[in-house]
């Protein structure tokens, strides 16, 4: 049990790191989306090693099933876009931010990696649908209902953003020759 869990953890951790690097290194957005799919799947595996079965299923359903499909739809709509090669002027801030973030993440990993928190005994049915459902409806009823409002507001915002024409588009339509910005 324990040996297979640590084997699964190492496999999923290496997969998550590699596909995360692939997501930010891929030149085409569609390849980045495919790497992201592998990344989300490996995170679902990691949730399984933490005995959060319900969240692993939610991760696959919501992230891989809904969010990623949305990404792929938009990539198909606006076409593949290559990043232009980095200009010389942009090289300095990019290198600086990479070094700073890398040092921050590595020092965080080095310091917080020493935290020694014993894993507690698992109660019966930990992480299952019934336990999470009871926790959602008994402890977090109001946040759970607020999620519905947040999603509704987000959908309304999306309608507002994606539907209306921008002022510049309207002025272009009014004066087709004046294409200057």
């Amino acid at each position, binding site marked *: 049990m324990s040996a297979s869990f640590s084997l699964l953890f190492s496999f999923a951790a290496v997969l998550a790191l590699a596909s995360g690097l692939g997501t930010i290194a891929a030149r085409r957005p569609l390849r980045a989306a495919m790497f*992201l799919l592998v990344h989300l799947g490996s995170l679902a595996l990691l949730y399984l090693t933490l005995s*959060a079965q319900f969240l692993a299923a939610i991760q696959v359903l919501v*992230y891989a099933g809904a969010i990623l499909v949305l990404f792929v739809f*938009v990539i198909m709509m606006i076409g593949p876009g290559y990043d232009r090669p980095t200009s010389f002027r942009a090289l300095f801030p*990019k290198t600086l931010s990479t070094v700073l*973030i890398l040092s921050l993440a590595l020092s965080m990993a080095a310091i917080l990696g020493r*935290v020694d928190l014993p894993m507690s005994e*698992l109660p019966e049915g930990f992480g299952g649908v019934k336990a999470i459902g009871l926790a959602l409806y008994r402890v977090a009823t109001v946040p759970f209902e607020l999620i519905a409002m947040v999603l509704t507001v987000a959908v309304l915002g999306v309608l507002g953003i*994606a539907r209306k024409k921008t002022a510049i588009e309207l002025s272009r339509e009014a004066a087709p020759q004046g294409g200057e910005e």
Partner: protein
Amino acid sequence: MDIEISSYIVLGALLFGIGAIGFLVRRNFLIQLMSVELMLNSVNLLLVGFNRAHASSHDGQVFTFVVIAIAAAEAALGLALAIAYYRFKNSAETDLGDLLRH
């Protein structure tokens, strides 16, 4: 008996770093959004990991549930912004969005 919590913390920190680097270095709107998803996911991993260490309640997993819902709303809004930006600039490169800089 199980894997140490520290390995999850190290993994979460590294994944957050990867997402942050991607957000700062890449100039494609969609890949920057994916980097935000990477960062959100690393935080989710830490929440579930700490919940495993304090297994008497499900608070961390409920929190993760809410974060996933917020991430779905964020992805929908971000992709709508990407479409609006693309119609405006005919490109997905965020370097071109410098209207407020001049």
